[in-house]
Structures are given as C-alpha cells and as structure tokens.
C-alpha cells in the first residue's frame, strides 16, 4: 500500500489539537513533509524505521531490560516522522522560556541569600522551608555571575486549542539532550530529501555553546581551565548521554572515584598524578554529591567537594540546591515570581495547579478526582503520578489517603488534552500525544536555546504519559522558517 493511501486514512482525534491536520486540511508547515511522504510506500518507510533502529543500536544508545537473568539491550523507541514547529510559535516559546529562566535564577539567588520574596510574602515561607530540596548547606554561597540554572529542560505542552503551557521546570540535571541531537542525525540519514526541501534550524551547536558556558565559569581567569563531566557511571540509565556530551565537548568524563579533594581544591587522579579541576558539569543528584554533607553512604560523590564549592575553588553546574525552584508546589508560584522580580506578565502560562494544603482546593480536587492528575511534588520521570480518569478505585483511595497524610507532598492539575502529531506505527499513520522539552542554556551572556528540543511521544494509543520510563518514545523536532 502506498503512503498516499495510508496518509489519507490519518484521522486526528476530535477535541484534540492535531499539529499536522486541521479540519481535513494539512497545516502549511507540514505541507512539504506530507508531499514527500505521499510519494513513499509502506515498505520503504518500514525500511527506514529499521535503519533508524540499527543506527541507535550500534551506537549503544540503549537501555537494558532484564529477563531470565540475562540483560537484553533495547533502544528507546524513535518515531521516524519529524514534528514541526513554526518560527512564529517558536519565537513565543523561546521568549517565554527566557523570561522564566531569568526569573528562576533570580529566585534561587534570593532564596539562598536575602529571601526578599519570602519576607514580602509573595511565596509562603513555609512552602520553601518544607521543600526537601531547599538546601540550607548552600545558604550564602555565591556562584559565578549569579547563575544557578545553567541548563534547564523546561517541559512545554499544547492544550486542546494549541496554546502552549509550561508543565514543569527541570532545573537540576535534565536529561535527553543527546536524543535531541541524535534524533536529528538519524533523521538526516533516513530522510535526506526532506532536509533539502525544508529550512530547518540547526541544533548541532548545543555542545559548543554549553562548553563555552562551562569554560566561562572557571573560578580564576585562566587560559585553559579543566572542565569535567561527572557521571554516576556506566550503570546509570543516562550514561550514553554523559559520554556523548563529554566527547562532543572534548572534556574528561569522570566518576566520583576519579576525583579527590585536598585543601579545598578538587583534583582528578591521572596517570601522571593529580590535576586540578575547575568546573564540574555534574550529572549526579545533590544528595549524592558529597557524602560528608549529604547522604553519608553515597559512593558516587566526592568527599569534601562542597568545601571546595563554598570556597569558590570549583564551579558546579547546575548549582547545588536548585531543586527548591522546580518543586511542583513552588511551580504554581512562578507566575507571581515573574511579576515580582521582572514586573512583567508571564509569556507562557502555567497549567492551573491546585494547592492541596488549602482545604477548599483539596475538597474540590477530591470531588473531581476523575478530571485531575495527581503528582508528587518531588518526583519526576512520571513516577508517583495518578491519572484520575484512568486509575482504579483503590489507587484513587490510596492517593487520597496519601494526600491527607502529607498535603505538601502532592499537587493536582486538570488533565490537559495534549496535542497530537502523526506517528508511523504498525505500518499506519496514527495520532499520538506529545510534549516538548527545549534545552535552555544560561551563561554570562544570557540565555540561549537551540531551536526545537526533544519531543517525547506517548506511543500507547490514548496515553497521555510521555515519560520514557512509562512507554514513551521520541521524535526529531524541527523549527522551520
């Protein structure tokens, strides 16, 4: 069957915003891709799908599933059809993220020093004090250029009328950027003709921009500061990304056991003795960073590293303690922060969020459980999430009990009808729900965002959960001029 016929069978779902088709017509940004797809048959598309999977497998872009005591490596599902965003839409998203990131950096500086926003009662002090990621150990530490969030992966979604919303702010160690870059490379291999007929904005300079920012953070003015990427090691699920970024930036990939602190300076152990390290792009959570300050049993971190950080002898990226700013309960207050710090109106809207500490809002949520999603404030990756319309009664009851016991630990949001895009699944084009994670980099020269980001797609029919741990896949994402 030719793709022309299967494309004609593509049916967007009523009540959802489909990014390719609108009332039986094709949106202009998809026109060229649609035309090219029409010229291909199902067999050749399946061939391209197979080639893409082989490219991922041979590069070791895999995760391991265990069955019968034997680990089998699987690739993260990749859908071959690119997702397309127009320049105008991107401009809006980009301005919104820049505004948000400026604000969140100001908030982090404030909350770990003067705490004006708490004193002015814009955000309840109790909300910050009760956040497990509010890190008293870094209170008063100054960081280079007052930048706390150097790398952000702010999740954006589109609602049923196409409006963009911020779903969550990931300000600690957001991952996935290597998939954004590899997805693009693979798409170039399988659809070179699409690249000649569309003007697609470049993403491949991301590692270079990041490297420039890391170099600029070295504590002293020096010609060649030593920058390293600190990984938890080869068993971490994002290990591929760590090696990818280290080699794309030409910096050393180190583990905690490669580093040692002496007299408040950090060194790495080399074949030639110790060498001082000036900037650490860490992919280890705060809790594991320094067993002397945080979790004493952590074998992933470096004893004494917080001392070196406090003294300003080493820069840590992202800064320690950022979790207070991407806590899901604090998220609800970001629009107020934007008004407070910048005196501007938020460009990108938040998803409405119910504060479950407030008895009225809690009651409302309990009365409308089938219309909300309940999230733990300190979990990510889709863990601890209850979709009210899909959950069984006992799950809902358990969630209610948990909320009663710890109202600060949860938020509720109305279930947003995520936008859909066409995916090539089982030899057919089918609509699936997506989100978008653009990667924003913040350095002394301001915020830079490579156009596009990682599109995560919920591959199961009808599912709204895009997390890779919950059966999600990804797509190449184009911003076209």
């Amino acid at each position, binding site marked *: 069957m030719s793709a022309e016929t299967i494309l004609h069978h593509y049916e967007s779902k009523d009540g959802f915003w489909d990014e390719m088709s609108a009332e039986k017509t094709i949106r202009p940004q998809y026109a060229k891709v649609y035309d090219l797809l029409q010229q291909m048959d199902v067999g050749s598309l399946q061939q391209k799908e197979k080639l893409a999977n082989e490219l991922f497998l041979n*590069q070791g872009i895999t995760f391991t599933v265990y069955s019968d005591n034997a680990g089998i490596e699987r690739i993260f599902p990749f859908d071959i059809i690119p997702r397309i965003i127009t320049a105008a839409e991107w401009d809006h998203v980009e301005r919104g993220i820049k505004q948000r990131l400026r604000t969140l950096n100001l908030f982090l500086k404030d909350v770990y020093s003067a705490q004006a926003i708490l004193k002015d009662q814009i955000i309840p002090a109790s909300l910050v004090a009760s956040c497990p990621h509010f890190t008293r150990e870094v209170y008063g530490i100054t960081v280079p250029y007052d930048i706390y969030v150097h790398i952000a992966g702010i999740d954006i979604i589109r609602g049923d009328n196409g409006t963009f919303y911020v779903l969550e702010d990931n300000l600690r160690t957001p991952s996935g950027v290597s998939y954004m870059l590899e997805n693009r490379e693979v798409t170039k291999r399988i659809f070179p003709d699409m690249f000649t007929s569309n003007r697609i904005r470049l993403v491949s300079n991301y590692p270079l921009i990041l490297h420039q920012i890391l170099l600029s953070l070295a504590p002293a003015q020096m010609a060649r500061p030593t920058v390293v990427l600190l990984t938890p090691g080869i068993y971490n699920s994002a290990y591929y990304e760590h090696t990818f970024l280290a080699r794309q930036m030409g910096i050393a990939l180190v583990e905690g056991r490669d580093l040692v602190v002496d007299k408040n300076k950090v060194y790495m152990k080399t074949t030639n003795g110790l060498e001082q390290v000036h900037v650490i792009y860490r992919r280890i959570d705060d809790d594991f960073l320094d067993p002397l300050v945080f979790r004493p049993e952590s074998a992933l971190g470096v004893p004494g590293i917080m001392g070196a950080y406090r003294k300003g002898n080493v820069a840590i990226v992202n800064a320690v303690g950022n979790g207070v700013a991407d806590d899901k309960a604090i998220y609800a207050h970001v629009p107020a922060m934007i008004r407070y710090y910048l005196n501007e109106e938020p460009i990108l809207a938040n998803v409405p969020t119910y504060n479950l500490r407030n008895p009225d809002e809690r009651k409302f949520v309990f009365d409308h459980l089938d219309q909300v999603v309940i999230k733990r404030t300190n979990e990510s990756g889709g863990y601890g999430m209850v979709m009210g319309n899909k959950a069984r009664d006992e799950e809902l009851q358990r969630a209610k009990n948990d909320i009663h016991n710890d109202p600060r630990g949860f938020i509720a949001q109305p279930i947003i009808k995520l936008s859909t895009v066409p995916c090539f699944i089982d030899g057919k084009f089918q609509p699936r729900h997506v989100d978008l994670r653009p990667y924003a980099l913040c350095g002394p020269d301001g915020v830079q965002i490579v156009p596009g980001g990682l599109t995560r797609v919920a591959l199961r029919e009808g599912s709204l959960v895009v997390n890779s741990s919950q059966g999600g896949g990804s797509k190449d994402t184009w911003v076209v001029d």
Partner: protein
Amino acid sequence: MMLSRIADSLFWLNRYMERADGLLRVVRTNYIMSLDKGSDNAPTWRQALTVFARLDETECARLEHDTPLALKTLLAETDNVNSLRVIVTKARENARGAQDHISKEVWEQLNQMYHFVNQPKLAELLSGAGALESIDRLMRQSMLFNGIAEATMPRALGWRFLNLGRYIERSLITIEMSDRQFAAIGYNLEEPREILQWKYLLLSLSGYELHLKMYRTSNASRDVLHQVLFDPSFTRSVIYALGRVDRYFTDVLAESNRVDNVSLSRYFKSLYSSVRYTDVDIIPHNGIQAFFSDVKGRILEFGKRLSQSFFSYS
C-alpha cells in the same frame, strides 16, 4: 596524561579483545581440523577447553568429542568466564567506561560484535551446519575491530595503553598454547616429528604458512619452538609481542614523571632481555618447561606492577 581509570579500562579492553581474537583462531582451526576424522592428527577439543574454559577432568572428557557442546562452552556459555560472550561483554564494559577515549568507529564495531555474541540464538547458530559461517563472521568482526582501531585511534596515550594490553595478552596466549603442545611431546625436541603434528598450533597462531616459508629443517619441533619464541618477524611470537610492549611502554614512560618509573622499567628490560638474548640452543634440553613458566610468571608480574603504578585510582 589521562585518568588512571581510563588507562586501566583501555588496557583491559584490548586484553579482552586480543583474548577473543586468540580464542577465535583456536576455535576455527580446531573446528576445521576436527573434520579430518580419518587423520591421526584430528584434534579433540581438549586443548582449547583447558586453555579457555576452567573444566574438571570429567567435564573435559565429556566435551572433548562433542563439537556442538564444546563450541557452546567456548563461545556462548555465560558460566565460562573465558567464553567469547563473556570476554566480549567485558571488553565492551571497559570500552563503555572509556567511551570518550575511543573513536566512535571503534565503539560501533565493538557494539556490533557484542550484539552478535549476545543474540539469543547464538547457541543454535553454533550447533548446526552453519557453525563455521558464524565462527568466520566473528573472526571477521574481531579483525575489523583491530583494523578500525588501527585506522581511527589517535596515537596518544590511550593508544599506548590499548597496545600494552594487546601485546601482553598476546605473549601470554602464545606461551600458554605452545607450552601445552610441547608438554604433549614431553618437551622432547630430539625425537623427529612431522610438521603436520604442529599444524594445529601453527594454524591457531596464524603462523603455518610463515613456517613453511621460513623453516624446513629436519627437526620441526625445534623450528616451531624457535618460531613461537624467537622469530621477530612472526607477529604472534613472544619476542615480537614483547618488542611491541617495549615500544609502547617506553612511550608511556617518556610522558610520565613518576618516581617508580625506573624500577618498573628495569623490571621490564630484564624480562625482555631474558627472551631477546637467548636461543633454542641456549635453553637446556630439560629446561623448556621452566623457561615457559619463568617468562609467563614475569610477564604477569610486570602487568601487575604496571597496574599498580598507572591504574590505581580506588
């Protein structure tokens, strides 16, 4: 200058890959020669199993005439710590830890081989008529790995540690394989033997054709001993392997200023000299076994000291 952990990983990456290469050569030779059922020289799987699998006597006796089972043990078994599958998996684990120090091409080639040996139907492939085809394919993957490393790896410190691993492993495999063959004739060089009796060893070390070209005296055993130990043109001889170790080790030392460099260097030079400045005639008739075991012991000790100096990081 590089992280000690990386140097360690690169060293072991290539030790395992060289072991895989050695194993595949032995298996291929063994498989082909075992088809010559009519000849007296048709080998059983005993020697390959004793070198590359830790089996007790009963197990060995059970497997030595059973080609499919022997192949499974040597190539696909996860219980055998030296099976191809385990070795390649370990090599890949080391490569993964040092991924930013090997070329993308090397990594991809190793991955291909890894996925081939870890496919669930490997044992099935090896049990049927297609066994040789699979062995050939693996052999080719292994050679591709070496060729791609040669063509794409930067000639920096990482390359030196990779090669130290490769040639230390190679010298050990040659000694191990030769020692067992000479043991089989009671280390007696005087009794005349046909070159056919040495074919298994020479083919396993890819040195049979070279032997035919270079040596054709009446005493094949003597010639073979010379070839495996002292022939500098034979890429699997002990002297060739140690010569490469000497070269890469000298390069490593040139960039290093550690205090224990001098004593480590002397240790190696003394080992190297003990092979370089001797000959088949100089080794006493009853001392061949002792010579093999002395050189092997000293190579292992050198490897240990090398790792203490350069790889200690935990």
